[in-house]
Protein backbone atom coordinates (compact mmCIF):
# COMPACT_ATOMS: atom_id res chain seq x y z
CA UNK A 1 0.00 0.00 0.00
CA UNK A 2 2.74 2.35 1.01
CA UNK A 3 4.77 1.37 -2.05
CA UNK A 4 1.82 2.04 -4.30
CA UNK A 5 1.34 5.43 -2.68
CA UNK A 6 5.00 6.25 -3.17
CA UNK A 7 4.87 5.09 -6.77
CA UNK A 8 1.81 7.21 -7.55
CA UNK A 9 3.31 10.18 -5.74
CA UNK A 10 6.52 10.15 -7.69
CA UNK A 11 4.79 9.41 -10.96
CA UNK A 12 2.61 12.43 -10.46
CA UNK A 13 5.56 14.63 -9.48
CA UNK A 14 7.56 13.52 -12.50
CA UNK A 15 4.66 14.06 -14.90
CA UNK A 16 3.98 17.48 -13.45
CA UNK A 17 7.65 18.43 -13.66
CA UNK A 18 7.76 17.36 -17.30
CA UNK A 19 4.62 19.38 -17.94
CA UNK A 20 6.23 22.48 -16.43
CA UNK A 21 9.77 22.07 -17.68
CA UNK A 22 9.18 20.74 -21.19
CA UNK A 23 8.02 24.06 -22.71
CA UNK A 24 11.11 25.73 -21.28
CA UNK A 25 13.40 23.09 -22.74
CA UNK A 26 11.62 23.39 -26.05
CA UNK A 27 11.99 27.18 -25.97
CA UNK A 28 15.64 27.03 -24.97
CA UNK A 29 16.46 24.56 -27.71
CA UNK A 30 14.44 26.48 -30.32
CA UNK A 31 16.06 29.80 -29.44
CA UNK A 32 19.42 28.45 -30.59
CA UNK A 33 18.16 27.10 -33.90
CA UNK A 34 18.15 28.65 -37.33
CA UNK A 35 15.69 28.37 -40.20
CA UNK A 36 16.94 25.04 -41.36
CA UNK A 37 16.91 23.26 -37.98
CA UNK A 38 13.37 24.45 -37.23
CA UNK A 39 11.82 23.60 -40.54
CA UNK A 40 13.51 20.35 -41.47
CA UNK A 41 13.04 17.32 -39.26
CA UNK A 42 12.33 17.26 -35.52
CA UNK A 43 15.49 18.05 -33.56
CA UNK A 44 16.21 18.44 -29.87
CA UNK A 45 19.82 18.24 -28.84
CA UNK A 46 22.27 20.94 -29.88
CA UNK A 47 25.49 19.88 -31.66
CA UNK A 48 24.13 16.34 -32.01
CA UNK A 49 20.83 17.07 -33.72
CA UNK A 50 21.52 20.55 -35.03
CA UNK A 51 24.18 23.23 -35.12
CA UNK A 52 23.34 25.89 -32.45
CA UNK A 53 23.43 29.54 -33.47
CA UNK A 54 22.97 32.82 -31.59
CA UNK A 55 21.06 34.41 -34.48
CA UNK A 56 17.71 34.29 -32.62
CA UNK A 57 19.19 36.20 -29.69
CA UNK A 58 21.02 38.71 -31.87
CA UNK A 59 17.78 39.77 -33.56
CA UNK A 60 16.42 40.87 -30.19
CA UNK A 61 19.03 43.56 -29.68
CA UNK A 62 19.22 44.82 -33.29
CA UNK A 63 17.27 47.89 -34.24
CA UNK A 64 14.28 47.34 -36.57
CA UNK A 65 16.06 49.28 -39.29
CA UNK A 66 18.69 46.53 -39.46
CA UNK A 67 16.17 43.72 -39.45
CA UNK A 68 15.98 43.25 -35.67
CA UNK A 69 13.13 43.69 -33.18
CA UNK A 70 14.97 45.59 -30.39
CA UNK A 71 13.40 44.53 -27.09
CA UNK A 72 16.15 46.27 -25.08
CA UNK A 73 14.22 49.49 -24.60
CA UNK A 74 10.92 47.83 -23.55
CA UNK A 75 12.96 45.61 -21.27
CA UNK A 76 14.48 48.51 -19.39
CA UNK A 77 11.12 50.32 -19.40
CA UNK A 78 9.58 47.30 -17.72
CA UNK A 79 12.44 47.02 -15.24
CA UNK A 80 12.14 50.71 -14.37
CA UNK A 81 8.35 50.70 -13.98
CA UNK A 82 8.24 47.46 -11.99
CA UNK A 83 11.10 48.31 -9.66
CA UNK A 84 10.05 51.90 -9.01
CA UNK A 85 6.39 51.00 -8.44
CA UNK A 86 7.34 48.03 -6.22
CA UNK A 87 9.72 50.11 -4.15
CA UNK A 88 7.23 52.93 -3.59
CA UNK A 89 4.46 50.41 -2.89
CA UNK A 90 6.59 48.62 -0.30
CA UNK A 91 7.55 51.85 1.47
CA UNK A 92 4.01 53.26 1.55
CA UNK A 93 2.42 49.85 2.13
CA UNK A 94 4.70 49.04 5.06
CA UNK A 95 3.95 52.35 6.76
CA UNK A 96 0.22 51.91 6.20
CA UNK A 97 0.34 48.31 7.42
CA UNK A 98 2.21 49.24 10.59
CA UNK A 99 -0.36 51.91 11.40
CA UNK A 100 -3.21 49.50 10.73
CA UNK A 101 -1.61 46.83 12.86
CA UNK A 102 -0.71 48.99 15.86
CA UNK A 103 -3.15 51.87 16.12
CA UNK A 104 -6.92 51.92 16.36
CA UNK A 105 -8.77 54.06 13.87
CA UNK A 106 -12.37 55.11 14.17
CA UNK A 107 -14.20 57.15 11.57
CA UNK A 108 -17.96 56.73 11.70
CA UNK A 109 -18.53 53.01 11.32
CA UNK A 110 -15.10 52.48 9.74
CA UNK A 111 -12.57 50.46 11.77
CA UNK A 112 -9.09 49.09 11.09
CA UNK A 113 -10.37 45.93 9.45
CA UNK A 114 -12.57 47.94 7.10
CA UNK A 115 -9.57 49.99 5.99
CA UNK A 116 -7.51 46.87 5.43
CA UNK A 117 -10.36 45.39 3.44
CA UNK A 118 -10.66 48.60 1.45
CA UNK A 119 -7.05 48.16 0.35
CA UNK A 120 -7.48 44.59 -0.82
CA UNK A 121 -10.88 45.31 -2.36
CA UNK A 122 -8.99 47.28 -4.99
CA UNK A 123 -7.88 43.91 -6.32
CA UNK A 124 -11.26 42.21 -6.13
CA UNK A 125 -12.84 43.82 -9.16
CA UNK A 126 -11.69 42.77 -12.61
CA UNK A 127 -8.95 45.06 -13.95
CA UNK A 128 -11.05 46.01 -16.94
CA UNK A 129 -13.38 47.95 -14.63
CA UNK A 130 -10.48 50.20 -13.75
CA UNK A 131 -9.22 50.69 -17.29
CA UNK A 132 -11.51 53.55 -18.29
CA UNK A 133 -11.09 55.55 -15.05
CA UNK A 134 -7.34 55.09 -15.28
CA UNK A 135 -7.32 56.12 -18.92
CA UNK A 136 -9.32 59.30 -18.25
CA UNK A 137 -7.28 60.05 -15.15
CA UNK A 138 -3.92 59.73 -16.91
CA UNK A 139 -5.04 61.68 -19.96
CA UNK A 140 -6.38 64.48 -17.70
CA UNK A 141 -3.07 64.90 -15.92
CA UNK A 142 -1.16 64.37 -19.16
CA UNK A 143 0.64 61.19 -18.17
CA UNK A 144 -0.85 58.90 -20.76
CA UNK A 145 1.74 56.93 -22.70
CA UNK A 146 4.51 57.78 -20.22
CA UNK A 147 6.66 55.83 -17.77
CA UNK A 148 5.61 58.00 -14.82
CA UNK A 149 1.94 57.39 -15.61
CA UNK A 150 2.53 53.66 -15.62
CA UNK A 151 4.40 53.87 -12.32
CA UNK A 152 1.42 55.69 -10.77
CA UNK A 153 -1.02 53.05 -12.01
CA UNK A 154 1.17 50.19 -10.86
CA UNK A 155 1.48 51.70 -7.39
CA UNK A 156 -2.32 51.59 -7.20
CA UNK A 157 -2.22 47.94 -8.21
CA UNK A 158 0.71 46.81 -6.09
CA UNK A 159 0.27 48.70 -2.83
CA UNK A 160 -2.77 46.64 -1.72
CA UNK A 161 -0.63 43.51 -1.98
CA UNK A 162 2.11 45.09 0.11
CA UNK A 163 -0.39 46.33 2.72
CA UNK A 164 -2.14 42.98 2.92
CA UNK A 165 1.06 40.98 3.41
CA UNK A 166 2.63 43.43 5.84
CA UNK A 167 -0.49 43.83 8.03
CA UNK A 168 -0.53 40.09 8.46
CA UNK A 169 3.19 40.09 9.22
CA UNK A 170 3.07 42.94 11.74
CA UNK A 171 0.10 41.34 13.48
CA UNK A 172 2.35 38.39 14.24
CA UNK A 173 5.13 40.57 15.68
CA UNK A 174 4.36 40.79 19.40
CA UNK A 175 3.20 44.22 20.46
CA UNK A 176 5.43 43.87 23.50
CA UNK A 177 8.44 44.26 21.19
CA UNK A 178 7.36 47.81 20.28
CA UNK A 179 6.51 48.50 23.91
CA UNK A 180 9.93 47.34 25.07
CA UNK A 181 11.52 49.67 22.52
CA UNK A 182 9.43 52.57 23.86
CA UNK A 183 10.38 51.73 27.44
CA UNK A 184 14.03 51.50 26.41
CA UNK A 185 13.94 55.11 25.28
CA UNK A 186 12.81 55.01 21.65
CA UNK A 187 10.13 57.40 20.47
CA UNK A 188 7.51 55.75 18.24
CA UNK A 189 9.43 56.51 15.03
CA UNK A 190 12.67 55.11 16.42
CA UNK A 191 10.81 52.06 17.71
CA UNK A 192 9.59 51.48 14.17
CA UNK A 193 12.86 51.82 12.29
CA UNK A 194 15.27 50.57 14.95
CA UNK A 195 13.33 47.58 16.19
CA UNK A 196 10.25 46.66 14.16
CA UNK A 197 11.69 47.18 10.68
CA UNK A 198 14.91 45.16 11.15
CA UNK A 199 12.76 42.29 12.35
CA UNK A 200 10.40 42.55 9.39
CA UNK A 201 12.89 41.86 6.61
CA UNK A 202 11.38 38.43 5.82
CA UNK A 203 7.95 40.02 5.39
CA UNK A 204 9.41 42.79 3.25
CA UNK A 205 11.07 40.23 1.00
CA UNK A 206 7.85 38.30 0.49
CA UNK A 207 5.87 41.48 -0.17
CA UNK A 208 8.58 42.72 -2.55
CA UNK A 209 8.58 39.44 -4.42
CA UNK A 210 4.83 39.55 -4.96
CA UNK A 211 4.97 43.18 -6.09
CA UNK A 212 7.73 42.45 -8.58
CA UNK A 213 5.93 39.41 -9.98
CA UNK A 214 2.56 41.14 -10.37
CA UNK A 215 4.16 44.27 -11.78
CA UNK A 216 6.38 42.43 -14.23
CA UNK A 217 3.71 40.16 -15.70
CA UNK A 218 1.00 42.79 -16.13
CA UNK A 219 -0.05 43.03 -19.74
CA UNK A 220 -3.47 44.63 -19.55
CA UNK A 221 -2.65 48.12 -18.27
CA UNK A 222 0.66 48.23 -20.11
CA UNK A 223 -1.36 47.62 -23.27
CA UNK A 224 -4.25 50.04 -22.58
CA UNK A 225 -2.26 53.00 -21.28
CA UNK A 226 0.57 53.16 -23.80
CA UNK A 227 0.67 53.84 -27.55
CA UNK A 228 3.84 54.76 -29.34
CA UNK A 229 6.13 56.62 -26.97
CA UNK A 230 6.53 53.94 -24.34
CA UNK A 231 6.30 50.20 -24.63
CA UNK A 232 6.62 47.63 -21.86
CA UNK A 233 8.08 44.19 -22.35
CA UNK A 234 4.88 42.07 -22.16
CA UNK A 235 3.27 44.21 -24.85
CA UNK A 236 6.37 44.04 -27.01
CA UNK A 237 6.67 40.27 -26.70
CA UNK A 238 3.04 39.77 -27.65
CA UNK A 239 3.48 42.13 -30.57
CA UNK A 240 6.33 39.95 -31.82
CA UNK A 241 3.90 37.11 -32.27
CA UNK A 242 3.42 37.59 -35.96
CA UNK A 243 4.44 35.81 -39.07
CA UNK A 244 7.41 38.15 -39.50
CA UNK A 245 9.29 37.25 -36.33
CA UNK A 246 10.91 33.86 -36.61
CA UNK A 247 10.28 31.11 -34.00
CA UNK A 248 13.81 31.23 -32.64
CA UNK A 249 13.61 34.92 -31.79
CA UNK A 250 10.18 34.46 -30.22
CA UNK A 251 11.58 31.71 -27.99
CA UNK A 252 14.53 33.85 -27.01
CA UNK A 253 12.29 36.81 -26.15
CA UNK A 254 9.98 34.59 -24.08
CA UNK A 255 12.95 33.22 -22.15
CA UNK A 256 14.50 36.58 -21.48
CA UNK A 257 11.21 38.01 -20.28
CA UNK A 258 10.70 35.32 -17.62
CA UNK A 259 14.37 35.38 -16.58
CA UNK A 260 13.98 38.03 -13.82
CA UNK A 261 11.13 36.07 -12.23
CA UNK A 262 13.18 32.89 -12.26
CA UNK A 263 16.02 34.73 -10.54
CA UNK A 264 13.60 36.16 -7.94
CA UNK A 265 12.14 32.70 -7.37
CA UNK A 266 15.56 31.10 -6.84
CA UNK A 267 16.74 33.79 -4.45
CA UNK A 268 13.58 33.62 -2.36
CA UNK A 269 13.56 29.82 -2.44
CA UNK A 270 17.08 29.74 -1.03
CA UNK A 271 16.02 32.20 1.64
CA UNK A 272 12.94 30.13 2.44
CA UNK A 273 14.81 26.84 2.68
CA UNK A 274 17.26 28.34 5.15
CA UNK A 275 14.31 28.91 7.45
CA UNK A 276 15.09 32.58 7.75
CA UNK A 277 11.60 33.55 6.77
CA UNK A 278 9.84 31.98 9.71
CA UNK A 279 12.45 31.88 12.42
CA UNK A 280 13.23 35.52 12.98
CA UNK A 281 10.47 36.03 15.48
CA UNK A 282 8.75 33.62 17.75
Amino acid sequence: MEKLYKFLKYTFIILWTVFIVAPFLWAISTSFKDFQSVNSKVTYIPWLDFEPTLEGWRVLVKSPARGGVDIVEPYFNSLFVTCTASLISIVLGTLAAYALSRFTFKAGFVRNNDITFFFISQRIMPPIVLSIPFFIFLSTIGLLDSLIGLVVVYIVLLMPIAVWIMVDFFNRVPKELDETALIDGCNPYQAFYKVVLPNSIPGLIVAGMFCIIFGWIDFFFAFILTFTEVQLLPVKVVALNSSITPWWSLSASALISVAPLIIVAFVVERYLSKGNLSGALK
Partner: protein
Amino acid sequence: MNLIGENITYKPDDQFHLNGVSFNFKKGNLYTILGRTLSGKTTFLKTIAGLLNPDSGNLSFEDNDFIKIPVWERNVAMVYQQFINYPHLNVYENIIFPLKQRKIGEDQIKKDVEEALKTVGLVGFENRKIQELSGGQQQRVALARSLAKKAKILLLDEPLVNLDYKLREQLREEFKRIFTQGLSEDTILIYSTTDPQEVMELNGEVIVLDEGKVLQKGPAKEIFENPRTLKVAEISNDPPMNILRGTKNSEKLSFENISINSPSHFKNLSDQGYNFGIRASEIKLDDQGEEFEIELAEISGSETLLHLKKGDSKVIVLIEEVMNFKIHEKVKIKFNENKLYAFDQNEELVSSPYGVSHG
Protein backbone atom coordinates in the same frame (compact mmCIF):
# COMPACT_ATOMS: atom_id res chain seq x y z
CA MET B 1 9.97 61.98 46.04
CA ASN B 2 7.95 58.78 45.91
CA LEU B 3 5.91 57.16 43.19
CA ILE B 4 2.39 58.08 44.13
CA GLY B 5 -0.82 56.95 42.51
CA GLU B 6 -4.18 58.37 43.42
CA ASN B 7 -7.45 56.81 42.46
CA ILE B 8 -6.20 55.46 39.15
CA THR B 9 -9.01 54.11 37.02
CA TYR B 10 -8.76 52.51 33.61
CA LYS B 11 -11.88 51.30 31.87
CA PRO B 12 -11.28 50.79 28.12
CA ASP B 13 -14.50 48.79 27.61
CA ASP B 14 -17.40 48.02 29.88
CA GLN B 15 -15.10 46.39 32.42
CA PHE B 16 -12.78 47.98 34.93
CA HIS B 17 -9.14 47.04 34.37
CA LEU B 18 -8.12 49.32 37.22
CA ASN B 19 -10.69 50.60 39.65
CA GLY B 20 -9.61 53.43 41.92
CA VAL B 21 -6.11 52.18 42.69
CA SER B 22 -4.04 54.29 45.09
CA PHE B 23 -0.53 53.64 46.32
CA ASN B 24 2.60 55.26 47.66
CA PHE B 25 5.80 53.50 46.65
CA LYS B 26 9.03 54.48 48.37
CA LYS B 27 12.49 54.28 46.86
CA GLY B 28 14.65 51.30 47.71
CA ASN B 29 11.69 49.04 48.37
CA LEU B 30 10.29 45.92 46.76
CA TYR B 31 6.58 45.81 46.03
CA THR B 32 4.77 42.72 44.86
CA ILE B 33 1.42 42.79 43.12
CA LEU B 34 -0.46 39.59 43.86
CA GLY B 35 -3.53 38.73 41.86
CA ARG B 36 -5.03 36.06 39.67
CA THR B 37 -4.91 36.21 35.88
CA LEU B 38 -6.86 39.16 34.46
CA SER B 39 -6.91 40.91 37.82
CA GLY B 40 -5.27 44.00 36.31
CA LYS B 41 -1.63 43.38 37.22
CA THR B 42 -0.26 43.99 33.73
CA THR B 43 -2.48 47.05 33.30
CA PHE B 44 -1.16 48.35 36.60
CA LEU B 45 2.47 47.98 35.49
CA LYS B 46 1.79 49.36 32.01
CA THR B 47 0.16 52.41 33.54
CA ILE B 48 3.27 53.09 35.60
CA ALA B 49 5.47 52.52 32.54
CA GLY B 50 3.30 54.93 30.54
CA LEU B 51 2.17 52.46 27.92
CA LEU B 52 -1.40 53.08 29.01
CA ASN B 53 -2.96 56.32 30.09
CA PRO B 54 -5.52 55.96 32.87
CA ASP B 55 -8.98 57.41 32.32
CA SER B 56 -8.83 59.22 35.62
CA GLY B 57 -6.56 59.58 38.63
CA ASN B 58 -3.12 60.98 39.27
CA LEU B 59 0.31 59.47 39.00
CA SER B 60 3.35 61.36 40.15
CA PHE B 61 7.00 60.54 40.57
CA GLU B 62 9.59 62.78 42.20
CA ASP B 63 6.92 65.46 42.36
CA ASN B 64 6.41 65.46 38.58
CA ASP B 65 3.10 64.66 36.94
CA PHE B 66 4.08 61.32 35.46
CA ILE B 67 1.09 61.05 33.15
CA LYS B 68 2.33 64.00 31.07
CA ILE B 69 5.73 62.36 30.48
CA PRO B 70 5.85 59.99 27.48
CA VAL B 71 7.08 56.43 27.97
CA TRP B 72 10.45 56.98 26.33
CA GLU B 73 11.35 59.77 28.74
CA ARG B 74 10.19 58.09 31.94
CA ASN B 75 13.32 56.07 32.70
CA VAL B 76 11.56 52.88 33.69
CA ALA B 77 12.50 49.32 32.83
CA MET B 78 10.16 46.40 32.33
CA VAL B 79 10.50 42.65 32.01
CA TYR B 80 7.55 40.84 30.46
CA GLN B 81 6.25 37.37 31.14
CA GLN B 82 6.93 36.52 27.49
CA PHE B 83 10.66 36.62 26.86
CA ILE B 84 10.88 39.89 24.96
CA ASN B 85 14.29 40.72 23.51
CA TYR B 86 15.31 42.25 20.22
CA PRO B 87 15.63 39.20 17.93
CA HIS B 88 17.83 40.98 15.39
CA LEU B 89 20.51 41.83 17.97
CA ASN B 90 22.85 39.56 19.90
CA VAL B 91 22.99 39.43 23.70
CA TYR B 92 25.49 42.26 24.06
CA GLU B 93 23.69 44.53 21.59
CA ASN B 94 20.41 43.80 23.34
CA ILE B 95 21.74 44.97 26.68
CA ILE B 96 23.40 48.13 25.36
CA PHE B 97 20.31 49.11 23.35
CA PRO B 98 18.66 51.24 26.07
CA LEU B 99 22.04 52.67 27.10
CA LYS B 100 22.78 53.79 23.54
CA GLN B 101 19.34 55.39 23.39
CA ARG B 102 20.27 57.46 26.39
CA LYS B 103 23.63 58.44 24.87
CA ILE B 104 25.79 57.20 27.72
CA GLY B 105 29.57 57.19 27.20
CA GLU B 106 31.25 54.07 25.76
CA ASP B 107 33.30 53.32 28.86
CA GLN B 108 30.33 53.58 31.16
CA ILE B 109 28.27 51.33 28.85
CA LYS B 110 30.97 48.68 28.91
CA LYS B 111 31.13 48.72 32.67
CA ASP B 112 27.38 48.62 33.13
CA VAL B 113 26.90 45.74 30.71
CA GLU B 114 29.66 43.68 32.29
CA GLU B 115 28.13 44.22 35.68
CA ALA B 116 24.65 43.29 34.48
CA LEU B 117 25.88 40.16 32.73
CA LYS B 118 27.69 39.12 35.87
CA THR B 119 24.60 39.69 38.00
CA VAL B 120 22.40 37.47 35.84
CA GLY B 121 25.16 34.91 35.20
CA LEU B 122 25.50 35.29 31.45
CA VAL B 123 29.18 36.22 31.16
CA GLY B 124 30.56 34.66 27.98
CA PHE B 125 27.24 34.80 26.15
CA GLU B 126 27.80 38.29 24.72
CA ASN B 127 27.91 37.26 21.08
CA ARG B 128 25.15 34.66 21.14
CA LYS B 129 22.03 35.17 19.11
CA ILE B 130 18.83 35.46 21.11
CA GLN B 131 17.24 32.54 19.26
CA GLU B 132 20.06 30.26 20.38
CA LEU B 133 19.26 30.77 24.06
CA SER B 134 16.90 28.78 26.25
CA GLY B 135 13.82 30.41 27.74
CA GLY B 136 15.52 30.96 31.08
CA GLN B 137 18.53 32.53 29.42
CA GLN B 138 16.33 34.78 27.29
CA GLN B 139 14.60 36.01 30.42
CA ARG B 140 18.01 36.64 32.01
CA VAL B 141 18.96 38.80 29.02
CA ALA B 142 15.74 40.78 29.44
CA LEU B 143 16.52 41.22 33.13
CA ALA B 144 20.12 42.22 32.39
CA ARG B 145 18.86 44.84 29.95
CA SER B 146 16.61 46.26 32.66
CA LEU B 147 19.35 46.20 35.28
CA ALA B 148 22.04 47.75 33.09
CA LYS B 149 19.69 50.62 32.37
CA LYS B 150 19.73 51.53 36.07
CA ALA B 151 16.17 52.76 35.79
CA LYS B 152 14.59 54.35 38.80
CA ILE B 153 11.53 52.17 38.45
CA LEU B 154 11.93 48.50 37.60
CA LEU B 155 8.79 46.60 36.63
CA LEU B 156 8.65 42.82 36.41
CA ASP B 157 5.46 41.35 35.03
CA GLU B 158 5.21 37.70 36.07
CA PRO B 159 8.77 37.13 34.88
CA LEU B 160 8.90 33.48 35.90
CA VAL B 161 5.51 32.23 34.80
CA ASN B 162 6.59 30.93 31.40
CA LEU B 163 9.53 28.95 32.73
CA ASP B 164 9.50 25.30 33.71
CA TYR B 165 9.29 24.32 37.35
CA LYS B 166 12.97 23.76 38.00
CA LEU B 167 14.19 26.92 36.30
CA ARG B 168 11.53 28.90 38.09
CA GLU B 169 12.77 27.73 41.49
CA GLN B 170 16.35 28.49 40.51
CA LEU B 171 15.66 31.93 39.06
CA ARG B 172 13.46 32.82 42.02
CA GLU B 173 16.41 32.24 44.32
CA GLU B 174 18.61 34.38 42.06
CA PHE B 175 16.01 37.13 41.86
CA LYS B 176 16.03 37.36 45.62
CA ARG B 177 19.79 37.74 45.61
CA ILE B 178 19.73 40.29 42.76
CA PHE B 179 17.01 42.33 44.43
CA THR B 180 18.83 42.50 47.72
CA GLN B 181 22.34 43.13 46.35
CA GLY B 182 22.19 44.29 42.77
CA LEU B 183 19.86 47.24 43.09
CA SER B 184 20.73 50.75 44.03
CA GLU B 185 19.09 52.49 46.96
CA ASP B 186 16.84 54.72 44.90
CA THR B 187 15.20 52.05 42.74
CA ILE B 188 11.57 51.16 43.17
CA LEU B 189 11.02 47.53 42.26
CA ILE B 190 7.53 46.35 41.38
CA TYR B 191 7.00 42.66 40.82
CA SER B 192 3.70 41.11 39.78
CA THR B 193 2.83 37.47 40.20
CA THR B 194 -0.01 34.99 40.61
CA ASP B 195 2.04 32.78 42.89
CA PRO B 196 1.63 33.37 46.65
CA GLN B 197 4.80 31.43 47.34
CA GLU B 198 6.80 33.89 45.25
CA VAL B 199 5.32 36.75 47.23
CA MET B 200 6.27 35.19 50.55
CA GLU B 201 9.81 34.43 49.38
CA LEU B 202 10.43 37.91 47.99
CA ASN B 203 9.05 39.26 51.26
CA GLY B 204 8.28 42.79 50.20
CA GLU B 205 5.26 45.02 50.54
CA VAL B 206 2.28 43.28 48.97
CA ILE B 207 -0.68 44.68 47.10
CA VAL B 208 -3.48 42.21 46.53
CA LEU B 209 -5.32 43.07 43.34
CA ASP B 210 -8.60 41.62 42.13
CA GLU B 211 -10.80 42.84 39.27
CA GLY B 212 -8.78 46.05 39.19
CA LYS B 213 -9.34 46.79 42.86
CA VAL B 214 -6.84 46.80 45.70
CA LEU B 215 -8.14 44.34 48.28
CA GLN B 216 -5.36 44.62 50.81
CA LYS B 217 -1.96 46.25 51.24
CA GLY B 218 0.76 45.31 53.68
CA PRO B 219 3.89 43.31 54.36
CA ALA B 220 3.88 39.75 53.02
CA LYS B 221 3.75 38.32 56.52
CA GLU B 222 0.64 40.28 57.39
CA ILE B 223 -1.18 39.25 54.21
CA PHE B 224 -0.37 35.66 55.03
CA GLU B 225 -1.38 35.85 58.68
CA ASN B 226 -4.37 38.13 58.44
CA PRO B 227 -6.06 38.09 55.03
CA ARG B 228 -8.67 40.78 55.44
CA THR B 229 -11.35 39.07 53.37
CA LEU B 230 -12.22 35.63 52.09
CA LYS B 231 -11.10 36.65 48.62
CA VAL B 232 -7.65 37.67 49.83
CA ALA B 233 -7.39 34.36 51.65
CA GLU B 234 -8.20 32.56 48.41
CA ILE B 235 -5.76 34.58 46.29
CA SER B 236 -2.90 34.51 48.76
CA ASN B 237 -2.83 30.77 49.31
CA ASP B 238 -1.88 28.02 46.93
CA PRO B 239 -3.70 25.66 47.12
CA PRO B 240 -6.48 28.10 48.00
CA MET B 241 -7.60 28.20 51.61
CA ASN B 242 -10.39 25.71 52.39
CA ILE B 243 -13.60 27.51 53.20
CA LEU B 244 -16.32 25.71 55.13
CA ARG B 245 -19.67 27.17 56.06
CA GLY B 246 -20.61 26.41 59.62
CA THR B 247 -21.87 27.73 62.91
CA LYS B 248 -20.31 28.36 66.27
CA ASN B 249 -22.20 26.98 69.21
CA SER B 250 -20.45 27.97 72.45
CA GLU B 251 -17.59 25.44 72.68
CA LYS B 252 -18.30 23.62 69.44
CA LEU B 253 -17.97 24.44 65.76
CA SER B 254 -20.21 22.49 63.47
CA PHE B 255 -19.98 22.20 59.71
CA GLU B 256 -22.31 20.10 57.63
CA ASN B 257 -21.97 16.90 59.65
CA ILE B 258 -18.69 17.46 61.40
CA SER B 259 -18.26 18.87 64.82
CA ILE B 260 -14.98 20.05 66.34
CA ASN B 261 -13.88 21.95 69.39
CA SER B 262 -13.82 25.70 69.16
CA PRO B 263 -10.27 27.04 69.43
CA SER B 264 -9.34 29.51 72.14
CA HIS B 265 -8.96 32.47 69.75
CA PHE B 266 -12.65 32.14 68.83
CA LYS B 267 -13.87 32.65 72.39
CA ASN B 268 -14.96 36.24 71.78
CA LEU B 269 -17.03 35.36 68.72
CA SER B 270 -20.78 35.38 69.11
CA ASP B 271 -22.68 32.19 68.35
CA GLN B 272 -23.79 32.42 64.72
CA GLY B 273 -22.94 31.29 61.20
CA TYR B 274 -19.45 31.88 59.81
CA ASN B 275 -17.24 30.97 56.91
CA PHE B 276 -14.41 29.07 58.49
CA GLY B 277 -11.11 29.00 56.67
CA ILE B 278 -8.23 26.60 57.06
CA ARG B 279 -5.08 26.11 55.00
CA ALA B 280 -4.58 22.83 53.19
CA SER B 281 -1.42 22.25 55.18
CA GLU B 282 -3.23 22.53 58.50
CA ILE B 283 -5.34 19.44 57.93
CA LYS B 284 -3.62 16.20 58.84
CA LEU B 285 -4.33 12.54 58.28
CA ASP B 286 -5.40 11.15 61.64
CA ASP B 287 -7.08 7.88 62.54
CA GLN B 288 -9.15 9.63 65.22
CA GLY B 289 -10.55 12.17 62.72
CA GLU B 290 -13.50 12.53 60.42
CA GLU B 291 -13.93 10.20 57.49
CA PHE B 292 -13.73 11.77 54.00
CA GLU B 293 -13.79 10.28 50.52
CA ILE B 294 -10.95 10.93 48.06
CA GLU B 295 -12.09 12.61 44.86
CA LEU B 296 -8.67 13.27 43.41
CA ALA B 297 -5.10 12.73 44.54
CA GLU B 298 -2.25 14.53 42.83
CA ILE B 299 1.46 14.39 43.50
CA SER B 300 3.47 17.51 42.77
CA GLY B 301 7.17 17.45 43.54
CA SER B 302 7.53 16.05 47.03
CA GLU B 303 3.98 16.83 48.08
CA THR B 304 0.64 15.13 47.72
CA LEU B 305 -2.59 17.05 47.27
CA LEU B 306 -5.80 15.31 48.28
CA HIS B 307 -9.19 16.60 47.17
CA LEU B 308 -11.66 15.24 49.70
CA LYS B 309 -15.43 15.21 49.97
CA LYS B 310 -17.97 14.52 52.65
CA GLY B 311 -21.52 15.34 51.76
CA ASP B 312 -21.39 18.86 50.35
CA SER B 313 -18.20 19.76 52.17
CA LYS B 314 -15.08 19.72 50.06
CA VAL B 315 -11.57 20.22 51.37
CA ILE B 316 -8.08 20.10 49.94
CA VAL B 317 -5.37 18.56 52.08
CA LEU B 318 -1.66 19.06 51.54
CA ILE B 319 0.56 16.24 52.71
CA GLU B 320 4.25 16.92 52.72
CA GLU B 321 5.34 13.57 51.44
CA VAL B 322 4.62 11.41 48.42
CA MET B 323 1.83 8.96 49.15
CA ASN B 324 -0.31 6.85 46.89
CA PHE B 325 -4.08 6.87 47.26
CA LYS B 326 -6.90 5.35 45.33
CA ILE B 327 -9.81 7.46 44.20
CA HIS B 328 -12.99 6.87 46.28
CA GLU B 329 -10.84 5.48 49.08
CA LYS B 330 -11.85 6.69 52.55
CA VAL B 331 -9.37 8.57 54.72
CA LYS B 332 -9.66 10.12 58.16
CA ILE B 333 -8.51 13.68 58.70
CA LYS B 334 -8.25 16.06 61.58
CA PHE B 335 -8.42 19.85 61.44
CA ASN B 336 -5.85 21.80 63.37
CA GLU B 337 -8.42 24.04 65.03
CA ASN B 338 -5.75 26.39 66.37
CA LYS B 339 -5.15 27.55 62.79
CA LEU B 340 -8.77 28.22 61.94
CA TYR B 341 -9.88 31.55 60.50
CA ALA B 342 -13.37 32.91 60.83
CA PHE B 343 -14.94 35.21 58.22
CA ASP B 344 -18.36 36.73 58.83
CA GLN B 345 -21.31 36.67 56.42
CA ASN B 346 -19.84 39.68 54.59
CA GLU B 347 -16.72 37.58 54.00
CA GLU B 348 -14.61 39.82 56.23
CA LEU B 349 -12.09 38.43 58.66
CA VAL B 350 -13.31 38.45 62.26
CA SER B 351 -10.84 36.11 63.92
CA SER B 352 -7.49 34.72 62.96
CA PRO B 353 -4.98 32.48 64.75
CA TYR B 354 -2.53 35.39 64.66
CA GLY B 355 -4.95 37.91 66.15
CA VAL B 356 -6.82 40.46 64.11
CA SER B 357 -5.20 43.84 64.16
CA HIS B 358 -8.21 45.70 62.83
CA GLY B 359 -11.88 45.70 63.83
